[in-house]
């Protein structure tokens, strides 16, 4: 995959698209089809570092039926379709490969009435995650998955990536919060997957679809579970003189039978960057800080908070502090959730990794991560969802330095190997996209991958949905035909 570069040749709007564009205009109306260079160039990228090449025509359907019409028009012309929400993905899942029709779901933002009996609400895919939670708040509910991009990312994108977030430790990732979906399949048919009932008939295609990274179809209506807002919340901040002590605290908390709502760890470098950015009151002298939150009913949260504080002290915490009020709590979380951006103030480029290891191996793998960065002469910072072993090492660099990208690439590969060797997995929440395709065979056998490919093919026999993603070269839909611009090679 190609890294976004500084220069590129320009091409005009392809003439061959004229008939396709006419049909797209018929499908969604002229104001909702864009073919200009500006739009198509913009959508070459998402929030990852990968450059997919120019998009084909870009459509902005407003209804499920319009999505269906767009997909059908693209099919008639043998063109692939790539869905796009807010474009905040970090694995390149939304970049266009082979000039496909890009379907932006961002104009589909309606939220239905909350079904209180089912604790569910139907939403359109363009609804922003945090908008949904804000909408639900006065009704006493929220949408539990809370990725760090929640103020921007869409529910459709959450479905495609099976998104997580700090609070998924207790509440589960997106898959546990999607009850049903109406999906436009790659052949243009509309299917209802799952249901509001507890044991829907047929295969669990809903479960298979979530996390499909847009390669299985486009979700156009999604019934998500709404979670009651907990009456009691306690947030603790524990400081440690060694990263290992923080990691061990996390294991010890879980071993003691407590499942907090969230447990996040930040190392010293990132804590300092965050503190400089938001001034949340994080300690600057600690080697690592643990942010733990428990929620629920008052007695249990008080008991669990006390227990976590005690365990942290037993594991060598130098200070344990309880957030005094909602304001302090919000500030601590703001610091955690903006951690990645705060980094950008230190180095011009960063590469954020995402692997998962068993909790008990956190301390070991972290030490390896620091050693790997040292070996490659890179600066690394660690901020991670410690509660579920989800590491997010951040490599900081300046891409303009010669040879730097090779070093970043090599360090990333070593981090992945270390995580897998510890019994972990390639990705906890960012997905595979184009970023980790080449590593899939490090985790899975050819037979395993063959079966994943079969799952995909059942949804998309003709490779019409977001081709070139997830599965490595050699599987169907992994290689893009007639793709002049996708020079393979360097990536970070």
């Amino acid at each position, binding site marked *: 995959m190609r890294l976004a570069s500084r220069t590129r040749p320009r091409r005009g709007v392809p003439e061959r698209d004229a008939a396709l564009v006419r049909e797209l205009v018929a499908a969604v109306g002229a104001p909702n089809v864009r073919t200009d260079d500006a*739009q198509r160039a913009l959508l070459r990228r998402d*929030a990852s570092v990968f450059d997919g090449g120019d998009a084909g025509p870009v459509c902005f359907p407003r209804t499920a039926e319009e999505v269906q019409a767009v997909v059908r028009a693209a099919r008639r012309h043998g063109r692939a379709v790539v869905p796009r929400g807010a*474009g905040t993905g970090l694995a390149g899942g939304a970049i266009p490969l082979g000039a496909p029709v890009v379907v932006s779901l961002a104009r589909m933002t309606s939220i239905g009435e909350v079904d209180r009996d089912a604790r569910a609400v139907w939403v359109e895919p363009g609804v922003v995650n945090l908008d949904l939670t804000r909408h639900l708040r006065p009704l006493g509910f929220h949408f539990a998955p809370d990725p760090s991009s929640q103020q921007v990312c869409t529910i459709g994108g959450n479905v495609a990536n099976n998104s997580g977030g700090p609070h998924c430790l207790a509440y589960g990732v997106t898959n546990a919060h999607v009850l049903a979906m109406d999906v436009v399949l790659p052949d243009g048919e509309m299917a209802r997957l799952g249901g509001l009932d507890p044991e829907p008939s047929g295969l669990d295609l809903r479960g298979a679809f979530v996390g499909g990274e847009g390669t299985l179809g486009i979700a156009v209506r999604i019934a998500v579970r709404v979670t009651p807002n907990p009456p009691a919340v306690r947030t603790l901040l524990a400081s440690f003189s060694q990263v290992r002590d923080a990691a061990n605290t996390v294991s010890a908390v879980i071993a003691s039978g407590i499942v907090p709502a969230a447990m996040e760890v930040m190392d010293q470098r990132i804590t300092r960057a965050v503190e400089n950015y938001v001034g949340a009151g994080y300690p600057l002298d600690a080697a690592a800080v643990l942010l733990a939150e428990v929620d629920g009913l008052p007695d249990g949260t008080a008991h669990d908070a006390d227990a976590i504080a005690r365990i942290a002290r037993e594991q060598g915490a130098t200070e344990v502090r309880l957030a005094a009020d909602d304001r302090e709590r919000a500030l601590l979380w703001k610091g955690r959730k903006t951690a990645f951006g705060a980094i950008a103030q230190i180095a*011009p480029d960063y590469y954020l990794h995402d692997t998962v290891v068993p909790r008990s191996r956190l301390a070991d793998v972290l030490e390896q991560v620091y050693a790997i960065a040292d070996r490659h002469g890179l600066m690394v910072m660690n901020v991670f969802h410690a509660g579920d072993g989800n590491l997010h090492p951040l490599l900081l660099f300046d891409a303009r330095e010669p040879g730097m990208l090779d070093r970043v690439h090599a360090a990333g590969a070593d981090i992945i190997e270390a995580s897998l060797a510890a019994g972990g997995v390639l990705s906890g929440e960012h997905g595979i996209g184009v970023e980790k395709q080449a590593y899939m065979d490090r985790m899975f056998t050819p037979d395993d991958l063959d079966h994943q490919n079969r799952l995909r093919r059942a949804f998309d026999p003709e490779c019409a949905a977001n081709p070139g993603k997830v599965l490595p070269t050699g599987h169907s839909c992994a290689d893009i035909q007639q793709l002049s611009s996708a020079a393979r090679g360097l990536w970070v």
Partner: protein
Amino acid sequence: MDLGIDPERLNACVQCGLCLTACPTYRVSADETMSPRGRIALMREVQDRGAPLTREVVRAFDTCVQCRACEPACPSGVQYGSLIEATKATLASRRGGWIRALAFAPLSRPRLLRAGSVLLGIAQRAHLVPRRLGLSARIPLWRAPLRASGDDVWMFTGCVMDAWQRDVHLATQRVLEAAGFGVRPTGAGAPCCGALHVHAGLHDRAVALARRTMDGLPGDAPIVVNSAGCGAALKEYGHLLGTDEARAFSARVVDVQEFLARHVDRLPTVEPLALRVAVQDPCHLRHVQRAHEPVRTVLRPFVRECVELDDEGLCCGAGGAYSVLEPGMAGQIRERKLSSIGRARPDVVASANPGCSMHLAAAGVAVRHPMEIVDEALRLSARAGR
């Protein structure tokens, strides 16, 4: 082509997209060319890769309200305001900024502005003003005079606001005096801060106005401003001129609510007005000056209830001259604000910026400046006590 943007500043954006939903034009269009990330990417396309300034690219830049809500949303600290100002300046010089320069000329010429305003007021009464100009409240044909009461603070009076909303200045002055400050209105000595010129890309003119304003307001006294847009511009003189003198001047500038919040205990305790007030945060108060909290601190003792809008401070679409230049987009943005106001069910909306209040009033919203509300509470109480 060179847009005149500092390459380091342009490079600071990592395309994370966290700014998207903070942007009012992205919110109403769902079009990434009309988002901060998209506009920055297009700046790069043009400046770094030589992409042509097509109609769509120019449109993307023109539609930016310059509310700068993307700046607090940006974790990487991208100085979007300076990127778009440079871009707009380059575009303005290319297409002959003289039309706009001419249109903005009266702003710094009080008598010309006054004469024009009276003509506009008469035209308004004769139903000759197009609706798209968004004028709501009648432009006054007669204004009560402003008189100095001391030299503790300057009260910045500006251009349009002084011509059209002098009542707000009078109310502001009375509130400052009630807190025990002697007030000197700036008047003709500093006729215009140049904010609209900066927005429109009229860089040279803006610099000239900044110099004139600084010359007109010597000394150390705080410069108290009751227009969020002017306050933001005055606070950015240091950046605009890049001199120590300008930075020292900007340090003296303070929003009136920001100023009074520090001295709230000096205001008399009075019976609060029986009003449910929704606070509308002008972008240049919230996102640029980041001084929107003091509005609440100052208002709360004087009203029954102070409520928040649920749109996280999204722009109302006024944007200085934006509502006149981009009426379609401005109207769509305002629709979002109106539905948020509808959900808050206030008796009145408090807005600390003349542009916002005119834009909202044109849609039938009852809007008042926070200083007018405080002033009324003080005056009612004084009358009752008599």
